[in-house]
Structure formats: structure tokens, C-alpha cells
């Protein structure tokens, strides 16, 4: 029963948060962003006290329910493990293992220290929610979009426009590689040993594990019923049940209830911790599932960890060698990256953003993608604006609305109109009006504040004139400028966003009573 409830909640929350990342057409209401707000690290960074207290209380009362049912990465691992069971067809056996406390606490310590020194990258890399967000954005989402386009092709050929085509764009090699490595490494660990990531690496798992030690409700042995068959231990995906000694490491238990479900003798319960002292009753097992510890093959482990580390490094190297020559020339001229609206300034943004890439997924104009080294080493994967496929919609505030960590603070439409993310630069030598002496005006056409406006030039021609003071940095001009090979207009980023003043124009009363011809 308990397990059924757990599985139902987990599958529901997991499906919804995944769909929320995938959804490009807005069929899920905006309120679904609450699914990301209730994640631990986002709540911590956004200093969302209510959610933090709720999560801590939940853990202190019921144990690591967060890890079990709320964290999408945790459920991803359960799904992988479930598949491994289905595909391998043989009985999945987990075995008890000792807690890797030194490793766990070192990772947590390193993450905190790195964060305190302004290196949020490590938190972003290891936070299970953020890592899962990237996984969806860079691996599942392209597949989802491709599926949509496939359906669109079929439906449209029958003159039905229920589906529409969506662009699938490359979002930078480094993030894709990191997402793929995350998918494979955590997936591999889950396939083999269940919740290894949660109990060795995950900084959230370590923190909540520390709390769950004191939780009121715990899984316990009912001593007089247990015959120490060891089945519970075999089913424990957290490898935390030592059936031989009837000891459960509640630190690592993710309250999945698999053990209770599997026990033939109802010898396990999930209940308030009693004050009853443990009686050591030796019940001879009818059949024991307990396996003796095999001698560990240290060299195999070394090999695996070495592979892991080199593959990460190779990925990074690959990312460098691939991206550099492919960088379009015009990107090089931008000295400062353009942080998305609501980022306030680079210090705030770099500290708060864990690169979950929800904004990347949600941006309807396809203008947000992960940075590489533009924000510095600590800012790898953090989102920046780019204008290859569109420009930032003047009235749109989606990215700041969905950001769960408040790295992008919420902006009203009015506030967004007054936010300057970057400033326009005009290179007249590249401009078509100057060079070809023909009409153009594409840049000014797209400018929402007329920071780029067309002024009289030779004859009937008009040429752009810029007023960077009122530029919002939306990139409309840069996106649309047709000058080749070098654009004549572009936006330069700002390390701190400015507030611009929009002049109120007087409405000049014009009445037309005549045809005029």
C-alpha cells in the first residue's frame, strides 16, 4: 500500500515536471512552475522560506520523501532500475553496502565551499533537479520536438493544422555533452545499483540524509516476525538494509517501501519510532537471501572512476575543439554576454543560477542558450541571450516567471520595458543603406523603443541612427540585419542591467476628413 502511494505520487510528479519542461505550446498552465519551485536547491537559492521549512519538516517527520517522490532525478533512477529489471529478466539483487560517508561529506563540503567562493557551477552540476532539467532540455526535448514535427508532417499533409512545426536548434556543445554524461553516468549507476548517486554524490541527498536520521517515522524491523531471510536487503535500492544485523541506515533510506512490500512475513513496518528496546532474537532462517560480501575488485573500481573522469575531461576538450572553429565570426565581437531579463547583474546571476535550463526550454523566441566561458569558468552552462533564431519579445517575461531560483527575478511587463540588458552598436560601414545606397530599415522596423530609428539620408533614403540610452537589448535589430557577411548592428551585453527612461510622447490630435486624392 505505502509503496503504491509512493509510486503513484512519484510517477505523477515526474511526468508533470518532465512535461512542463517539454511543453512548447503552453498547454500546461504557468502555475505548473510550482513543480520546480518545490525543489530543494531552487528553494534554497531563492530563499523560499516556506518551501524550505516544508521540505525540512517533511524529512524530519517522514524521512527522505523528497528524494523518493519529488526529486525528478531520483525518480529517473528508479525508472532506469525498473527497466533494468524488466529487460534483464533476472531477479534484481541489491546488496547492503557500507555508507561512503567520507565521499558524501567531501562532495557536500566541496560544493558549499565552491558556492561560497562564487563558483556556482559545482552546485549546478550536482544538484539533481538542475541536472535533470538539463537532461530534459538537451536530450529528451529535441526528441519530443522531432516527434511533434513528424506528427505535424502527417497531419498537415491532410490539410489539418492541429500541429505546427517547431525549430530544433543546437544549444551549444558543452551543455549537451554534460547532459549526456549525466544521463549515462547516473543511468548506468541506477541500472547497476539503484540509488548510488543519491547516496554518494548528491549534495541534497547527503543533507536530507543527515536530517532523516532524526525522522519521526522510520522503517523498522519487527524483530519477532523477522527470520532474517534478507529479502528486504535484496530489494533495497539504497543498499541501506543490513539484514544480517537487522540494522537500517536511515541516513540513506529514501523511504521507497520496497522492503515492506516484499517481506513475506510482515516483519517490517513504517511507523513512529518507539522507545522499545531491540531484543536480539535469533531466528533461524528458512532460506537466506543474504549473500556473503564478495571481495571487492579495487582495480575495476579504479578503472571505472578513471574512465569517468577522463570522459568528462574528454568531453570538455571535445567541446572546446568543436565549438571554437564553428563560432560564427559575428559572435566574437560581443565582448560581454547578454544576461537574460531579470538577471540584475552578473554577480547576482552567477551566484543564483544552477543552469536547470528551464528558461532555455521555455523561451518562446529561442533566444536563450547556455554560455560556454563567457561568464567565466564558474558560469559554464548558465544561460545567455543569442539572436541566431529570434530576438527577445518586448512584452514577454516567461524566463523570469519560470526561474525557480530567482537568478532571474520576476519582472512585470512594465519593469521589463524599462530594463536594459544590453546596448545597441551600429557599424555604418556594414550597413546596406551606406554600402548599396538602397532602402532597408529592417533594424528600426524591429526596434520596440526606436532606439534605432531611420533618419533622412541621401535623396529618399533613410539610414539608421541609434540612441543606446533607450535600447533594451532585445536583439531585434541584430537578428534581422540582412547585411552579409558582417551584420551592421549588434547588441553589447552589460555586466549590470540598467533602468531606462521611456519618454512619454504627446498624442498629437490629427483628424482626416478628406480622401486626399
Amino acid at each position, binding site marked *: 500500500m505505502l509503496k503504491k502511494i509512493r509510486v503513484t505520487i512519484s510517477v505523477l510528479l515526474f511526468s508533470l515536471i518532465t512535461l512542463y519542461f517539454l511543453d512548447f505550446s503552453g498547454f500546461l498552465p504557468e502555475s505548473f512552475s510550482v513543480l520546480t519551485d518545490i525543489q530543494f536547491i531552487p528553494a534554497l537559492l531563492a530563499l523560499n522560506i516556506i518551501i524550505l521549512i516544508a521540505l525540512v519538516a517533511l524529512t524530519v517527520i517522514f524521512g527522505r520523501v523528497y528524494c523518493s517522490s519529488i526529486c525528478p532525478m531520483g525518480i529517473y533512477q528508479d525508472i532506469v532500475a525498473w527497466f533494468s529489471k524488466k529487460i534483464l529478466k533476472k531477479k534484481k539483487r541489491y546488496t547492503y553496502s557500507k555508507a561512503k560517508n567520507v565521499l558524501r561529506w567531501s562532495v557536500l563540503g566541496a560544493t558549499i565551499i565552491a558556492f561560497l567562493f562564487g563558483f556556482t557551477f559545482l552546485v549546478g552540476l550536482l544538484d539533481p533537479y538542475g541536472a535533470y532539467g538539463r537532461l530534459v532540455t538537451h536530450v529528451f526535448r529535441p526528441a519530443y520536438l522531432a516527434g511533434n514535427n513528424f506528427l505535424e508532417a502527417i497531419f498537415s499533409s491532410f490539410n489539418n*493544422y492541429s500541429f*505546427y*512545426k517547431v*525549430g530544433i536548434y543546437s544549444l551549444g556543445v558543452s551543455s549537451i555533452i554534460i547532459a549526456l554524461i549525466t544521463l549515462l553516468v547516473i543511468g548506468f549507476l541506477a541500472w547497476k545499483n539503484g540509488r548510488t548517486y543519491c547516496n554518494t554524490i548528491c549534495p541534497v541527498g547527503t543533507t536530507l540524509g543527515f536530517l532523516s536520521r532524526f525522522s519521526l517515522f522510520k522503517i523498522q524491523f519487527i524483530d519477532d516476525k523477522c527470520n532474517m531471510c534478507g529479502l528486504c536487503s535484496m530489494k533495497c535500492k539504497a543498499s541501506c538494509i543490513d539484514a544480517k544485523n537487522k540494522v537500517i541506515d536511515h541516513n540513506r533510506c529514501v523511504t521507497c517501501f520496497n522492503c515492506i512490500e516484499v517481506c513475506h512475513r510482515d516483519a517490517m513496518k513504517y511507523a513512529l519510532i518507539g522507545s522499545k528496546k531491540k531484543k536480539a532474537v535469533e531466528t533461524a532462517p528458512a532460506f537466506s537471501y543474504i549473500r556473503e560480501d564478495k571481495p571487492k575488485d579495487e582495480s575495476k573500481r579504479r578503472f571505472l572512476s578513471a574512465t569517468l573522469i577522463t570522459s568528462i575531461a574528454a568531453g570538455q576538450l571535445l567541446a572546446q575543439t568543436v565549438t571554437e572553429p564553428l563560432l560564427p565570426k559575428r559572435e566574437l565581437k560581443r565582448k560581454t554576454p547578454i544576461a537574460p531579463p531579470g538577471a540584475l547583474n552578473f554577480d547576482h546571476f552567477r551566484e543564483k543560477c544552477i543552469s536547470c535550463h528551464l528558461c532555455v526550454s521555455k523561451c*518562446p*523566441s529561442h533566444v536563450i542558450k547556455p554560455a560556454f566561458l563567457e561568464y567565466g569558468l564558474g558560469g559554464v552552462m548558465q544561460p545567455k541571450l543569442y539572436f541566431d533564431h*529570434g530576438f527577445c*519579445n*518586448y*512584452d*514577454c517575461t516567461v524566463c523570469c516567471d519560470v526561474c525557480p531560483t530567482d537568478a532571474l527575478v520576476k519582472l512585470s511587463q512594465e519593469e521589463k520595458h524599462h530594463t536594459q540588458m544590453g546596448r545597441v552598436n551600429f557599424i555604418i560601414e556594414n550597413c*546596406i543603406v551606406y554600402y*548599396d545606397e*538602397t*532602402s*532597408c*530599415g*529592417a533594424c*528600426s*522596423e*524591429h*526596434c*520596440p*523603443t*526606436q532606439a534605432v*530609428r*531611420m533618419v533622412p539620408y541621401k535623396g*529618399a533614403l*533613410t539610414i539608421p541612427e541609434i540612441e543606446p540610452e533607450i535600447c533594451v537589448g532585445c536583439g531585434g535589430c541584430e537578428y*534581422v540585419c*540582412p*547585411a*552579409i557577411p558582417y551584420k551592421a548592428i549588434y547588441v553589447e551585453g552589460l555586466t549590470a542591467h540598467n533602468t531606462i527612461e521611456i519618454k512619454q*510622447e*504627446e*498624442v*498629437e490630435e*490629427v483628424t*482626416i*476628413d*478628406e*480622401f*486626399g*486624392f
Partner: protein
Amino acid sequence: MDRRNFLKAVALTGAAVTTIKDADAMSVLTQSFQTTNAAAKYDMVAVLGGEPEAMFRKAIAELGGMKNFISKGDRVCVKPNIGWDKTPELAANTNPKLVTEIIKQCFDAGAREVTVFDHTCDDWRKCYANSGIEAAAKAAGAKVVPAHQESYYKSVSLPKGRSLKEAKIHQAIVDSDKWINVPILKNHGGAQLTISMKNYMGIVWDRGFFHANDLQQCIADVCTYAKRPVLNVVDAYRLMKTSGPRGKSDADVVLSKGLFISQDIVAVDTAAANFFNQAREMPLDKVGHLAKGEQLGVGTMNLDKLNIRRVRI
């Protein structure tokens, strides 16, 4: 064998290029059909002083009714300007009420299907929604089709074009029997004015080419596309006087309550430009594509030669 089956058969043989050429050939046929069908008393009707739908009803009645332009069973495409993520009050897009009225009249005249689209500048879904046109068109029974991906466009050649010899035009137009051009009258930073001729830029895929290769000439060139609109209906209920074509605020908008309708695209734009000139000085020679269009034989700027019906409501 009807046209659709014929096209399908051709497509099935795998000759995609042939399909496009046939579509062209067919459109030339429908073209000659259109002009003989239009037994209009006037070359142009100009209406002042009414609501968008009332002005259109008046204007089309003066032209002998929609039946003169749309035949029973026609697949019609109505092409408004839906370029911007703006509400109707800001006059960046065609008035949705006018679009509704035109669609209704098409169906009343026996149209089998009406499609509506525009290749927008802002995010297309926001434009379609916030312009009010998607809802209006759907309510009137039209099909609103996307236009934000290259695959919706088909290559056509423009043998009469000077700078633009070839363009990719939206399939909703290429595959239609008739189409109606419904621009809004606006100032434009590059082309000076955007009216019916400039509205063609919303039926093509690669607008960047226009801007990079003599915008005014390309606008005239694209108007030589063999399948001409059966009607150009200029929405001047509100006009955008300054900061066009996007506009900054309602300070750019004039409530001018006008509507111009003609089969002659250069003439109707010339008339609308003269009308605009009353709100803000706009000499016709600045709007370069008008004269270039006339040179290409797309229409005439000489309004004196035309039989124009002027109506006030």
C-alpha cells in the same frame, strides 16, 4: 480529375519540381479567369467615416458584391498584416473586424475554404493571438495556418522581376484559387510606407533578401507574381503615422476611418499614400516601390485615369 487530385498524382510520381511548375501553370489559368470574372463598375472604391466592417460592406457592394471576385467552391486565402505582437488599438496589424467581414463574405459567395496566415516578424503565436486575428478568423470559419517555417513555402519564379527573380511563397497562396490582400496603412522606416505592395513581404519566406537587394525594387518585383490578389483591401481605420511599422505607443496612431479597395495594387497604394499624406507629409516619390511597380506593369499611379467611387458613411 480535379486539380487537387491531379496535383497529388503528379506528386506521387515523385517529380516535386513538376508539381511546383504545374501549380504555376494552374495559377496563370486562374489568373485570366479572375479578371474576366470581375465585372466591376469602378476601378476603385474609397470609403470614409465608418467602422471597418461597415466600410467594407459598403465598398464591396459598390463593386457589385463579393460574387464578382469569389466563385462557388473556391479555396480562398485572406492575407492580412499580422506582423507584430500588438493589440488592434496600436494599428500595427490589420483590424480583426475587417478580416472577419471579408471571410464571412467569401463564404457567402460560396468559398469552399478560407485560409488566413502571415509571415510574422514577432513570435508568430503571440502575433496571431494578440492581434485578435486568429480568434476572429476562426470564429468566422477560416483556417488559420502557420507560416513560421521554410517548409510551408514553395518556390516560384518571377520572370518579370529585376532584383528578385525567384521567391518562396507560402503554400496557402500558391495552392489557393483566389487570394485577397488585406494590408493596414502604416509608416515604414525603410520603405517609407507599407500598404498592399509591401504586404507581399508577408507571403514570402526570405525577407532578408529584399532588404539586402534594394528593398523598393524587390517589393515591386514580388508583385509581378502571376497569381495576383483578386482584391486589395487597405485597412485605414487606424493608420500608423510614425515609428512604423512596429510603432512605440498610441501616439503613433491616427483614427482615420478609411478603407480603399481595388484590383489595381499600385493605384490603391497610391490612393492610400495620398490619404496618409494628410496625417504626415509623404511625397509619392519617396515611396519608391510605387513607381517601380508601375514600371513593371503591375498597376498605375495615375489616379485621374481611373473610375474611383468615393463614399462617406
